[in-house]
């Protein structure tokens, strides 16, 4: 039973446009959400996070939105750059080890 779902395995976006990566979760007890970025043959690196008491968190080109009623969060990257091409994992926690989604492979085309 997947508690964190990323239903789009891949996404292609043109350089300079907005990338929107989506994530849904089923456990209403999750209170902290994170996005990780992973390049091939490397470990994931932390990108941005949001607490359940907020609905938006912004860090430079990256913004995460949380809709608790819909149990949905999204990561917006604007403008997208070729270096953003990677696999993005959504993760959630309720003061337990992180539960990860399956990831979405983003390809930013120059």
């Amino acid at each position, binding site marked *: 039973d997947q508690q964190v779902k990323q239903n789009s395995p891949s996404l292609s976006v043109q350089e300079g446009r907005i990338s929107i990566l989506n994530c849904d979760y089923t456990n209403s007890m999750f209170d902290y959400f994170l996005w990780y970025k992973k390049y091939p043959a490397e470990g*994931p690196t932390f990108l941005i996070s949001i607490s359940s008491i907020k609905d938006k968190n912004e860090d430079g080109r990256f913004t995460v939105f949380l809709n608790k009623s819909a149990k949905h969060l999204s990561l917006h990257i604007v403008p997208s750059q070729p270096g953003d091409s990677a696999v993005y994992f959504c993760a959630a926690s309720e003061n337990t080890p992180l539960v990860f*989604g399956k990831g979405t492979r983003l390809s930013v085309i120059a």
Partner: protein
Amino acid sequence: SQTIHQWPATLVQPVGSPLSLECTVEGTSNPNLYWYRQAAGRGLQLLFYSVGIGQISSEVPQNLSASRPQDRQFILSSKKLLLSDSGFYLCAWSPIGTEEKLFFGSGTQLSVL
């Protein structure tokens, strides 16, 4: 600053052979330690986590085991590898008292043939 070391980077092992992957963390004390696996076409699956020496929690029943002989050392083992054990294994740590933000090692690509 804290660093995490994981080795080897790649490993090719025959079915039925043993496995030992090692992970060490520097620059912090009493970290929480984790082993995750990313299998082909799947996400990051938590295998084991530890909040202290000798304290191991297993998330998925399998033929793998983990041990924490020292505060900053975490070892993933198997007595007999299966084909299904192939995958990308990641060690991670988080500061004591929180499981929210993980810092990952560079991973081990294991191919069981």
